[in-house]
Each structure stands twice: as C-alpha cells, then as structure tokens.
C-alpha cells in the first residue's frame, strides 16, 4: 500500500493541441480547484502542461485557477505520441506524487491515462461525470438525484478519498468508483460536464519547469501527419442552444430545417444516433453515450424518441424542449416543455416567431 501522506495536490493534465488549450482543460481546472479546496487548505490545483514551446499557455492556466503549472517542454512532445507523453507524465507523477490526476476523456486522454495508470499500478476511472471529496455533499447528491441507498455512509467528512461517479451500461446505470489502496487516484472526465472558473486576467501562480528525460528511442510510433477534418468542427460542447433532430425528421432533407432553425436561434445542429446511422447527418453531430455530452441552456429535441443512450448525453441541459408526435416518447417525459405535434409545422413556426419573442 502506498504511503498516502506523501501524496499531495490535484493535478490536471491540461491537454493542448497545436498550441491551443482544449476546452476540457479549463473545465478540469475549475473542477480540480473545487476538489483541492475540499481536501484541505494547503492542497493546490496544478496544471500539467506538456508540449513543445507552450510558454504562451502558462498565463491562461493561472487565469483559469491553476495554483501551480508544471511545464514539461520538449521537442519530442510536439505531436502527441502515447510513448513520449506516457513517459513524461509517469516520471513527473513519480517525482512529485500528486494525490489525484485528472484527464479529459478525449481521444487522446483516453489513450494516455490507461497506459500511465497501468505503469503506475494504480486505479483509473473512465468518463466520470461527477467527482466528490466531501462525503456530505455526495450523500446529498445520492438522496436528491438517485435511487441509491445511503445506508452505511457516514455523513461525516472523514474520508478524503475521491468518489468518482460515471455512467455504465449505456447510461442505464450509474456507479461511484473509489481507489482505496493506491495513489494517485486517476480519472478521465467527460468533456462538457464540469464548469470552468471565471477567467481572472493577470492571476499569478508558481511555475515549475520539469525536465523530461526523453530520447527518440523511447518513441515506437511515428506521427507521419495530422489531418484536420475538412468539415467544420461542430462545437456541440460550447453551444448555448442545440437544435437536435432524430428519426422523426424522416430524411437528410429534414436536417435542412434544423440548420435553418439553428441559424435563426444562434445554435448548433445536433442529432440522435438513429439519424446518424441512417446517414442523414455526419457523426460529428451525434449527441449521446457514443457521441458528445452536451449541456446547453436550451436543448431542442425534434423527432427524437429519447433512447437512454441519447439521454445520457443531454440530460444535463438546463432546459429541454421536445417536439414529437408521440406524447408517450421518453423524450416527452423528461422534457421541461413538451410539444405534441408535427415538427415540420411547429419548428417553422418557432423560427418565424423567434424574433418577435426574443
């Protein structure tokens, strides 16, 4: 068993691509900040910034709440490779011994984190949607939002372990995972779920430069090129309004209406798996368990029945508006505003009246 007293601080792997910070890095700094203050007064949230020539990101990390930035700058970290990043991160974790390490559950975070956890022989929880230190808050969450029994959990905050909550079985079931006997406690966190702190321009912190012991021999996979998709990246996770369509649209043509709707309300087009699988719209628009998790201010679900996998990706929306012919559809049950009717008539009316109302 690890000597727990040696392990301190909450680390966030602040992923950057081509010198730009990923949104999930800001979200995780916000969550890491909150967790660090729950652990103790002298626990800090630390950004781990790996890359080649990434000095320009340090101030941004302070501005989003980092008390400390560990900067691992090395020319072999220019492009992401599992080998180089896993070695640099593992060495840093062994040297500085953080109590918690968080990664965004991106295609890169989900490649890197398991490799590091296996090398350190510690636990890793995938795709978390909630993290708790404070036991009283966790018990409150269970009582308010879940069917879980709280028997046997003392309300006292005597356990500083990280309680990592995540969906399983396509969102049908939730589980809270703990890592009781090893350190650090590691988790990947779904993008779009945690809130960043408000940006504080000019905030200062401590910079620790970490010298990575890397050589070309450490890297067994060569990056030949990185190709950006020609299509515009759909930023579902940042959208305030999402106009999402499903099987009820009936065809690829139906998505023209959704595009018009999104353009009018300043939103982004989303889609259910059924619509994507029918080939009506690109997979990058997919919301749900196998797509993107979204948390907009308004989620318009048009002709989406609301399979549990879809709900898993959009239940966190502030307001859900469902338009569906079937009043019994699951989406109509979870909607804040349910409109029973033909979306092909109702949506054009919403578009027509939007200006007048807002």
């Amino acid at each position: 068993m690890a000597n727990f007293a040696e392990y301190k601080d909450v680390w966030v792997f602040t992923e950057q691509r081509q010198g730009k910070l990923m949104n999930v890095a800001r979200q995780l700094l916000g969550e890491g900040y909150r967790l660090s203050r729950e652990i103790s007064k002298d626990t800090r949230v630390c950004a781990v910034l790996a890359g080649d020539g990434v000095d320009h990101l340090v101030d941004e990390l302070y501005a989003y709440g980092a008390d400390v930035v560990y900067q691992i700058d090395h020319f072999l970290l220019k492009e992401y490779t599992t080998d180089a990043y896993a070695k640099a991160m593992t060495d840093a974790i062994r040297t500085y011994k953080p109590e918690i390490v968080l990664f965004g559950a991106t295609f890169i975070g989900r490649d890197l984190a398991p490799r590091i956890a296996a090398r350190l022989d510690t636990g890793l929880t995938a795709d978390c949607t909630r993290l708790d230190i404070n036991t009283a808050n966790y018990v409150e969450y269970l009582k308010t939002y879940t069917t879980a029994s709280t028997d046997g959990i003392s309300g006292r905050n005597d356990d500083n372990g990280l309680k990592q909550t995540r969906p399983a079985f396509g969102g049908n079931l939730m589980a809270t995972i703990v890592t009781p006997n090893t350190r650090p406690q590691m988790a990947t966190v779904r993008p779009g779920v945690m809130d960043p702190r408000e940006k504080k321009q000019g905030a200062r912190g401590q910079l620790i430069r970490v010298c990575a012991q890397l050589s070309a021999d450490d890297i067994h996979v060569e990056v030949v090129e990185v190709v950006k998709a020609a299509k515009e990246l759909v930023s579902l996770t940042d959208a305030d309004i999402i106009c999402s369509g499903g099987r009820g649209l009936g065809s690829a043509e139906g998505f023209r209406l959704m595009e018009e709707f999104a353009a009018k309300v300043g939103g982004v087009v989303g889609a259910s798996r059924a619509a994507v699988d029918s080939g009506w719209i690109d997979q990058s628009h997919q919301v749900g368990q196998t797509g993107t998790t979204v948390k907009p201010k308004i989620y318009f679900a048009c002709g989406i029945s609301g399979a549990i996998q879809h709900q898993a990706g959009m239940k966190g929306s502030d307001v859900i508006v469902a338009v569906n012919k079937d009043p019994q559809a699951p989406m109509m049950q979870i909607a804040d505003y349910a409109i029973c009717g033909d979306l092909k008539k109702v949506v054009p009316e919403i578009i027509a009246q939007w200006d007048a109302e807002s």
Partner: protein
Amino acid sequence: MKIIVCVKQVPNTNEIKINPETGTLIRDGVESILNHDDANALEEALKIKDRDPKTEVIVLTMGPPQAREMLEECIAMGADEAVLLSDRALGGSDTWATSNALAAGIRKIGNYDLIFAGRQAIDGDTAQVGPQIAEKLGIPQITYVREFQMEGKRITVQRALEDGYQVLKTTMPCVLTCIKELNTPRYMSIRGILKGAAAEIKVWSAEDIGVNEELVGLKASPTNVYRSFTPKPKGKGVSVKGDTAKELAGNLLAELKEKHII
C-alpha cells in the same frame, strides 16, 4: 503470421430495462452479444487472413463459461482458434486486473505479431483494457484505428481524433484498438457455424496462465465499486398548450421568455 484478437461478450445494452421499483438492471432475457467494436477487430484480422491464408487468427476472452457461445461465433466468422480465460479467481477484476489476465493469456499463446481489440465494450465503455494490455506486454499501442495498412512488418494506420485523424507508422508487434469506421464485420458462414459448433475451445484457469490473487480478481483490483444506482427520473415538465402549430410555437416562446430562458 499470428494475430490475437481480444473480444468480450456483453449484454445488448439497447435491450436493457430498469426495474423502476428496485432501480436495478433487469438482465433476464437480455441477449448476450459479441461486443460491437470487437467484431470490427476480428474483421480486420480476418481480412489479413483472406489475403494470406497462412495467417493464424486466435480469439481470446475472459469471462464466465457461457462466453464459449460468443467464441463459437468468432470461429464461425473465420477465426482459427479460441481461448477462454475462465476462473472464479478472475471474477470482479477491474481494467487493471483484467489486463493482467489477458496479457498473461497472450504470453501463454506466444509468438504473436499483432493484437487487435475493440476500442471499448458497450457495458463499461472504459476503453482502458487495450492500452493496459499493451503496457503489460511492453509493446506499442494505437487506439481508435479507423484505417489499417500493412507491408511486411511495417504498419500504417489512421487514428481518429475528434477533429480529424493522425497518420501513424509502427512495427509489429503492437496492440491496435478498432472503431466501427474501420470496416464492416462479415456474417457467419454455414460452414463456419458447423466448424464453430465442433470447435474445441481452450479453457484456461488462473493457474494455467500463471496469475495469482495479487494480479487478478476483485481483491487485487485498485478500483472498487463504492455504490451503483440509477438516476431518479426528472420531475414532470409542462405540456405546451395550443390547437395549431402557430399557437404551440407562440405559447412555448412566451413561456421561455417569462422564465427568462430567452
């Protein structure tokens, strides 16, 4: 050339229902299937075998005795051999412990050139076991493979990213985790089904693969399930009133405006 494909038998999550009283999963009558991404992994191995019939394709799984059915399906699709790691001592393993067991099984099979796996299983959705097997075996990994090419021992793949892809080169042996964009899995053939039904499936215990309670099972696992539960259904929303589409839209927007949502 020898290819090992790691597969998992999973409940078909599309069919899973929740008992609203107890808040638990109703598993009765839920069909068990070959995990989707794993079918893509097997297909890619079989495509290599199509080009070079001397290729040996071995499927490997860890699970309860009934996982045998899924392995027979894999043979019916075209795999040559199947190995089932099955032992009470392996029960309750998390991803770390599961990768210890699978890596030990792979070492016992030995002399492999490539290991294919699905990106993730639809029951847990962790995507951790593939990379962790690669780490335990000390070989490179490439996850989210959407295109695969091979020339001798050199391989070139496209690895998907959220906003595009990387083109990566590596050499064998390595672990590749596959996504559905990679290929379309073939169906079982009649001849294959007969072969699958007659196939001898190797069943190995923890002792057979040389792992003990420090490496596998519930107690060895660094992560534990603390609580599992179902989310409470949200309170009932408002049904928007109106006789025409115009009225419905108007009433909705009036409501949203009144609540300062827009």
